């Protein structure tokens, strides 16, 4: 049994202007110790996915269908009490901005001890001991001193380390990291990513890394999913996606990397922008921006096609695969 299995997840937002689907047909599995990257532009639904895994969506968002099986138990249908025993305990989450995620009026120690004591019946001293140990694990210098300090007394990188330490407090099975390095300095980003990688490997923690940084995804994760307008459009082994992107959108993302541009020339970019959720076009959501758009793309939703180890939702890829197979058959016949 997979550690986490998401089947046909659909998330909707009941807005005043009507219901919109924020996520549709989300399917993936995550094994113990596996690292999964979720990539996409802003607004693709990456963060909503992260929140819905913990069933933390607040109004007007709600899980409209599908199931989220954590060790076979459906998080989407759990009571608030059961969910609380899983949140922070078995699955924890790290957010983008460490300035915002730490409560400004509580000391680091108070926040850590509180988390420990919410899940385990332990004494203040024991909780402090565990907290200090975790602070050491994330290489916080002089943890005893930091323990009594307030978040504003620490630097951004230090704060994100503390957020990671809080995420690791209960030795969770899964960490969901929602753009954990976006708010940090470039030099600190690499440090924090290395630290997360090291800790996940050492403790055999599964990681769901939500990011728009393809470089980070390629370094850290084994599996990756590319999302567009609330759907997965390509998923499979990270290496294959990075080296041989099939979907025109993924290709566009790869081409947009600064490394892909010729020095002195403008950076490549994908024309247009992601449609708002209320105005997702019929057929393939990417069709208005796609260079290779065909007639069928405007009317019909593409099915997943297998390509190597990946699954790609694109009419063009499907067509090419069909042609390839036909050519192969002709060759075999000859």
């Amino acid at each position, binding site marked *: 049994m997979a550690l986490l299995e998401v089947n046909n997840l659909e998330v909707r937002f009941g807005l005043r202007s009507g219901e919109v689907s924020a996520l549709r047909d989300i399917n993936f599995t995550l094994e113990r110790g596996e690292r999964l990257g979720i990539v996409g532009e802003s607004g693709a639904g990456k963060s909503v996915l992260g929140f819905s895994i913990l069933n933390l969506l607040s109004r007007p968002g709600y899980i409209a269908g599908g199931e989220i099986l954590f060790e076979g138990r459906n998080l989407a249908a759990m009571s608030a009490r059961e969910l*609380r025993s899983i949140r922070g305990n078995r699955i924890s989450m790290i957010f983008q901005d460490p300035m915002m995620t730490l409560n400004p009026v509580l000391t680091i120690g108070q926040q850590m001890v509180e988390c420990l004591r919410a*899940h385990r019946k332990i004494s203040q001293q024991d909780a402090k001991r565990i907290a200090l140990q975790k602070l050491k694990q994330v290489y916080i210098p002089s943890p005893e001193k930091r323990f009594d300090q307030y978040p504003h007394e620490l630097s951004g990188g230090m704060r994100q380390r503390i957020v990671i330490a809080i995420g690791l407090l209960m030795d969770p099975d899964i960490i969901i990291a929602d753009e954990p390095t976006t708010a940090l300095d470039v030099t600190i980003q690499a440090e924090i990513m290395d630290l997360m990688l090291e800790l996940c490997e050492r403790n055999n923690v599964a990681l769901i890394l939500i990011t728009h940084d393809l470089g980070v995804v390629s370094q850290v994760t084994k599996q990756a999913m590319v999302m567009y307008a609330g759907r997965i459009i390509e998923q499979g082994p990270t290496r294959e996606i990075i080296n041989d992107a099939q979907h025109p959108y993924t290709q566009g993302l790869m081409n947009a990397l600064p490394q892909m541009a010729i020095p002195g020339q403008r950076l490549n970019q994908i024309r247009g922008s992601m449609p708002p959720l209320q105005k997702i076009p019929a057929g393939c959501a990417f069709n208005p921006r796609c260079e290779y758009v065909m007639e069928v793309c405007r009317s019909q939703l593409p099915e997943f096609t297998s390509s190597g180890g990946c699954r790609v939702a694109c009419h063009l890829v499907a067509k090419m695969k069909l042609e390839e197979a036909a050519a192969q058959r002709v060759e075999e016949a000859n």
Partner: protein
Amino acid sequence: MTEQVDILEARPSAWQRLRDSHLWHSFVTDRVAQLSLLVFVAFALMALLAPLLAPFNPYDPAQIDILNSELPPSWEEGGDPAFWLGTDAQGRDLWSTILYGTRISLTIGLCAVALQAALGIVIGLLAGYFGGRIDSLLMRFADVQLSFSTMMVAIVVLAVFQATFGTELYQRLAMLMLILVIGIAEWPQYARTIRASVLAEKRKEYVDAARVIGLRPARIMFRHILPNTLSPILVISTVQVANAIISEASLSFLGLGMPVSQPSLGSLISSGFEYIFSGAWWITVIPGGVLIALVLVMNLLGDWLRDVLNPKLYKG
């Protein structure tokens, strides 16, 4: 690593941190705030130490002599040096009565505000945190409560109580009744302010982070959100204490407050009012001055606190 440890200086003590804070800096440079605090502390001490400071005990009938009634202050013609500020219509030493009256006024003010705050904080937190129907319901309650003026509610409740249970029982329970009535009548002030702050705080990521950790809603509300809304609470508290003291004084003036045997500043003013045209101005004017000074310094302190704690005026 060790070098880094050496560079970090020792953690400053609480006193040191106060000395470095914006609050302290602003206080040191603000004469009005200093003077107000000084006067307020003086009043608080007077109230606290009333039994030690007062030359007479105004509650002890044995110490009161009706023959001493309406003596002017000692510096006026006909004054008695034993009664510094003169005596009231029943022969009580005015200075002692004012000390005890301040004590009653402050107690009622502080307790009523504590009650208001307790009610308002809980209701405001619930409304702001849960939102939706709970919010609408609680805030409509607040609207209804606000649409009756405090005075009207207090007058009706106290008058009905007096009529139903008799004056004697009322006189015994007067202080408790005043606290309850003023406390319950004014909770919407707190509830609304706190709800507004909670709505702003709720959207911040630390609240999501607390939910991710798996904390209960009550814990998130009281431990995570409430401390972040403390500065508006502090500011309205100072103003509300002043308001509660005024309310109590007004009710006492109307004869619905503290009984004559146990006068607050308000009932003292009221009792002197009957004699003001017979020339005994001091029974009304002196407690009135004390009341004005007390309320004024509290409002000034509140204004100062509001300026200091307003993040729009101070970015640091």
